């Protein structure tokens, strides 16, 4: 006596004995595990289930009440157990490479019988793996020997480069190359289906079975923090007392990414994708891909009309299979279709280029040549400009401190420079590489690159606004230098050369003796003292005026630009310019010095010598430049004020109440 149950099997209602059902369930389970390693395995099992349902249907139609154990066994015999068609399968599976490797993956389903002998001999000896190599296949061979993921070995070699380099070279020479099958079931690959740059993050995510945004964010967080620091919502630099800290992490992350990019292979074949994410996940990812294709498949199924939902699912699987297929670029097609498969070559042979007439064709080719040569020239010019800017930049780098405060502004400068110059270069390089690899074009890359570039421009704008802000206010202050009365009728003014050595800031002019025109602006660049604690300026003006008494007077007017008057005044107080008098000899120092922290704020010193009537002043030739200098506007105002004080201007008050001023002739 046996219990009979009704099951819904592939849309058929089938009465089946419970024991027979268990048998069937077990059998289908074994089929599922067996075919899971093959592409489209689900579809195969589904087809087989359909067939079984049909056979059962036939049995039931012949007047039998229910499916018995014997019926199930008969069906199983006709279809075969996995271990039965294993040998058959292996032969038809082509190169045998796939089946062999998948056996070591899934030890189940009776495949273990053919496993031991080839891999045994391989395991004993160390080889270079010519099947999976970045340089010489040494790491991958070692990994095979140790039964680990080659990525870890490669990482080890990169980390201990200095020491292991020689080991690598020696092994490269000593070991013989050999095609080795991977003997680990889970490996770190770069994921070509889930990538922004190289698919490294996608691969890591697949390896650890997490969402791919997690590693991405981890890679980007330092960069983001730094960006936030730039925009200075909160002063990160103060939290991390070392300013370079953020940058170290940033560049570290980038280096890590690039290294991983280099040492992790990309998952190309289906087998590698399975190794990358595990079978379950891979199938799920296919299913997700399918949802993109659902629209097309639905239109197809509706064309066929009378299909039930169950078939729609199958249809979807079909499209999934083909989608994966086309992506693989026919590589697996070659792998799996053993006998003379020139199929893929044929596909590439017939590009569907429309035929044009000869004349038009020649014209198009000509236009293309012209276009590309223009592009080439343009690129060359760009590269030239870039290199030129880089060279200039490195030479102008010392000047940076004159305008830009360390810390926040320096970070701003480097970020903006990096974005403006490195982003286009990287974008072009990436484009060329992708072009060479014939990867699908990704507009996202271009958009991101241009956004970054624009961000760089914006940062430059912020930076220049900040620098301009430092020159927004002009301030001056004066002090009288007390000098002893000069006995003779003549005063000699002499330059006192700076007694110490000083360092010049090197620009093009001083380096190469080349004058590019732009360097005029840098003529009045300051010098730094030897121990670099103060800047030396020679922006000194000499003014000779008329004294209103019988004595020589000397005034020193200091001027500076600054962010606000208070800071400008504070900076002026730090000027150091000591005029020395030796009887009738007045010694003007060659430079005036300011603390190096001030930077360049268009500092200037104006020395005004007032000469009493009847006495003369004689100036040494060395001071000619000083005499010719034009004092800054603030200072000119002061000089005029001074002269106004000395000359009383008669004021007439007219009857209308207006005030008219008549200047006397002897005003300056």
């Amino acid at each position: 006596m046996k219990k009979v149950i009704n099951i819904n099997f592939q849309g058929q209602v089938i009465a089946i004995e419970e024991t027979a059902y268990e048998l069937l369930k077990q059998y289908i389970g074994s089929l599922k595990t067996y075919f899971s390693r093959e592409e489209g395995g689900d579809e195969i099992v589904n087809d087989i289930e359909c067939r079984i349902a049909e056979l059962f249907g036939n049995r039931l139609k012949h007047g039998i009440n229910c499916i018995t154990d014997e019926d199930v066994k008969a069906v199983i015999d006709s279809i075969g157990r996995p271990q039965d068609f294993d040998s058959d399968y292996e032969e038809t599976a082509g190169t045998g490479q796939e089946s062999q490797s998948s056996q070591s993956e899934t030890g189940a389903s009776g495949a273990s019988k053919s496993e031991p002998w080839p891999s045994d001999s391989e395991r004993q000896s160390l080889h270079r793996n010519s099947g999976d190599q970045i340089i010489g296949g040494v790491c991958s061979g070692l990994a095979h020997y140790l039964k680990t993921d080659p990525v870890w070995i490669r990482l080890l070699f990169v980390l201990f480069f200095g020491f292991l380099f020689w080991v690598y070279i020696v092994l490269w020479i000593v070991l013989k190359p050999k095609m080795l099958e991977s003997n680990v079931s889970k490996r770190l690959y770069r994921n070509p289906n889930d990538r922004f740059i190289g698919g490294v993050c996608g691969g890591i995510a697949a390896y650890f079975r997490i969402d791919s945004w997690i590693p991405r964010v981890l890679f980007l967080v330092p960069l983001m923090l730094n960006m936030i620091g730039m925009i200075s919502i909160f002063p990160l630099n103060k939290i991390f007392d070392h300013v370079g800290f953020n940058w170290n992490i940033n560049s570290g992350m980038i280096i890590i990414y690039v290294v991983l990019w280099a040492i992790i292979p990309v998952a190309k074949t289906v087998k590698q994708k399975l190794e990358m994410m595990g079978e379950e996940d891979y199938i799920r990812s296919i299913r997700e891909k399918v949802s993109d294709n659902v629209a097309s498949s639905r239109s197809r199924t509706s064309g066929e009309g009378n299909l039930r939902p169950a078939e729609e699912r199958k249809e979807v699987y079909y499209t999934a299979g083909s989608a994966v297929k086309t992506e693989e670029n026919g590589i697996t097609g070659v792998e799996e279709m053993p006998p003379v498969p020139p199929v893929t070559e044929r596909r590439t042979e017939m590009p569907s280029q429309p035929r044009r007439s000869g004349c038009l064709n020649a014209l198009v080719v000509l236009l293309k040549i012209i276009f590309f040569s223009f592009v080439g020239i343009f690129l060359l010019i760009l590269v030239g400009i870039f290199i030129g800017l880089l060279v200039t930049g490195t030479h102008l780098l010392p000047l940076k401190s004159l305008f830009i405060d360390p810390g926040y502004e320096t970070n701003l400068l480097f970020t903006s420079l990096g974005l403006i110059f490195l982003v286009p270069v990287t974008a072009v390089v990436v484009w060329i590489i992708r072009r060479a690899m014939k990867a699908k074009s990704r507009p996202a890359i271009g958009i991101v690159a241009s956004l970054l570039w624009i961000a760089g421009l914006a940062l430059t704008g912020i930076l220049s606004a900040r620098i301009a802000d430092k020159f927004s206010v002009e301030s001056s202050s004066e002090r009288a230098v007390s000098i002893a009365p000069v006995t003779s009728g003549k005063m000699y003014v002499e330059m006192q050369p700076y007694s110490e050595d000083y360092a010049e800031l090197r620009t093009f002019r001083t380096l190469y003796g080349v004058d590019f025109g732009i360097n005029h602006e840098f003529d009045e660049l300051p010098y730094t003292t030897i121990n670099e604690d103060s800047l030396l300026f020679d922006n000194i003006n000499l003014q000779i005026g008329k004294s209103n008494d019988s004595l020589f007077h000397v005034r020193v007017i200091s001027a500076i630009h600054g962010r606000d008057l208070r800071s400008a005044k504070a900076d002026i107080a730090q000027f150091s310019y000591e005029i020395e008098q030796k009887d009738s000899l007045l010694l003007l120092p060659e430079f005036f010095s300011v603390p190096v922290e001030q930077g360049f704020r268009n500092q200037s010193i104006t020395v005004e010598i007032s000469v009493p009537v009847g006495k003369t002043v004689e100036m040494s030739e060395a001071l000619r430049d000083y005499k010719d200098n034009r004092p800054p506007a603030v200072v000119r105002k002061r000089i005029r004020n001074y002269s106004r004080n000395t000359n009383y201007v008669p004021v007439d008050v007219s009857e209308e109440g207006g005030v008219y001023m008549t200047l006397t002739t002897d005003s300056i």
Partner: protein
Amino acid sequence: MRKGVLEYCILSIIRRSEAYPGDIIDEMKNAGLQLLEGTLYPLLNRLKNAGILTYQWVESTSGPPRKYFRLTEKGDEFYVLLQATWNELATGVDTLTQKEDRSDKNQSE
């Protein structure tokens, strides 16, 4: 069975007329070639994935709808190639074995 021969047989059956796996099994059986269905399905799947075969669903009276396979254009080309290879092999084997005994060839198949 040797590599490729099975494909050749199946493709030739499908080339004659659209066929569903049950037909193929029957025909192979009639021709005296034993074939496990468990081998046939993955093979068909691979051929389909390689773009050699395509199929359409046809409602069946005796069960779930069936997949009827037919050759694609590429499949036709592939078939011609297989045929050429097979003929080469067959004539080669023939000329070799004809000198001795004809029965050898049958066995090898």
